[in-house]
């Protein structure tokens, strides 16, 4: 049961991950819109956003009970 409902945590973590990246990028663009700031965030956000989607999908599968003892 814990494993199953912990899926909510992973989904929330994925959403939070995307939010924190975008928010931090906004803050840094305001404070220091230099080229290396843009290079960093234009690299990090497109790479990690699909991975966060994958984490959300993992959380969804947890909620569906796909990682029960007999299923892995």
């Amino acid at each position, binding site marked *: 049961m814990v*494993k199953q409902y912990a899926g909510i945590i992973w989904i929330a973590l994925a959403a939070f991950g995307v939010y924190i990246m975008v928010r931090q990028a906004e803050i840094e663009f305001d404070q220091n819109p230099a080229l290396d700031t843009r*290079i960093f965030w234009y690299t990090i956000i497109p790479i990690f956003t699909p991975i966060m989607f994958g984490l959300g999908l993992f959380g969804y599968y947890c909620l569906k009970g796909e990682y029960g003892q007999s299923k892995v």
Partner: protein
Amino acid sequence: MSNNEQKSGWELMKVIFASSLGTLIEWYDFYIYGALAPIIAVQFFPSENPTAAFLAALATFAAGFVVRPFGALVFGRLGDLVGRKYTFLVTLLLMGVSTFAIGFVPTYKEIGFAAPIIILVLRLIQGLALGGEYGGAATYVAEHSPVNRRGYYTSFIQTTATLGLLLSLGVILTTKNALGDTVFNDWGWRVPFWASIILVLVSVYIRLKMAESPLFSKIKREGKISKNPLKESFTQKPNLKLVLLALFGAVMGQGVVWYTGQFYAQTFIERTLGVEFEQTRYILMIAILAATPFFLVFGALSDRIGRKPIMLAGMLLAVLSYRPIYQGMYNLTQMPPQQEIRNKHLLRVPDENTLIVDKGDSLFITKKWTGAYGLIIRTEEKRTVSADRSVPVNTMTSRTVWLSGLDSGSIPPPFWSMTFLVFLQILFVTMVYGPIAAFLVELFPTRIRYTSMSLPYHIGNGIFGGLTPLIATRLVDVSKTADNPAGDPFVGLWYPIIIAAVCFVIGFFYLPNKRDPDEFNT
């Protein structure tokens, strides 16, 4: 694997040698680029051109790592359709040719903008090739190994990344010492790239003589090859859920521990602490040599107690001990406050441990002093000189630290203390990485194994791990303020600590420890 197909110990070691040698060469090719990136940036990406600087950032930091998952998809698919042997012949040739070619690219001064573009393309090819290599090598060895020794035999492949790093450090140091700094920075840096072709050709020759994986040959005979391994791996839930579990429960944490213990440790020692270039390399090389046998130890242990407990133990130890370890590394090179105050009056009161060379507008100060814990180290500082010839502390423009060794009279000597702290980190690497090849190959069926294991592996290592130095350095930069212009030297550790901690929790609750051995052969 059936008893008829099970190889003798000697035949199996030949398989392992052939696979491992090629994989080691690929890692070497990949790492010499990273190790020589500062020189490559100067030769090919002049900073006055913003676009070239942009390309420099991409090529130097991100491109080679980020493209690895794409290589995993391309060559993983090929390996599951055509076979393991020929696929990782292709990856080896691609890597070898692109690395060799980097050694011949004319500089920006000679051919202008074409130079950085060619370098970027070649770096991307390196990343693609590496993305296809590891999955093939690990799968190939695993499919030859007996069930109860799979962890031990695949751990030989696991040594190749670290040994490739060691080889790259050794070749670069040797070339630099042989040619001298000036020649090395001019054209001598090309030599390690040229040298790789010899090793690649030897590996290709050996691999041409290898037979195909027996398990792949078996499913090919039986007509059980997947028609579309990409679709089967990543769109069908029974397999996709295992790919996600492998990534978030194992490889994500393993990747950050791997790159923190070896790459970020090197960056921290050299750039944050200012330890001299050669000493930094020797520290890393000695620590690597001492820790490498533990890949085999933990691989073999995982055959007895399972892969999961060892991998998770390595992650947990890293999460709990990174901060104290890096604090210890930092303390080894810091000058006590009393000495900083005395340095304000260096010109007037030098002591017998200080040598000052006056260059007019700057001073080179070599000082032997007693640091933390009574350890003796030597620093060379370059300081600008003000009009009244006083030397305020905050005018230091560079600082290089030499850690004394057994001759210091200190117990323990600072050089060896630093080496031990790096050794500990690499020990964690052997725990998380030693069993993981066996873990990954056991998770997936034969017909889609190459594809399925390669993608999570290269996302975990190429993305999460490979970007560790970049992200950690960025965190330190962001922590700089007017009151603290140097920033918090430890804030970069939060990235690997948080990633490894999340991975530990997911792995603890969701990873299986033992798999049905019969499933491996399906």
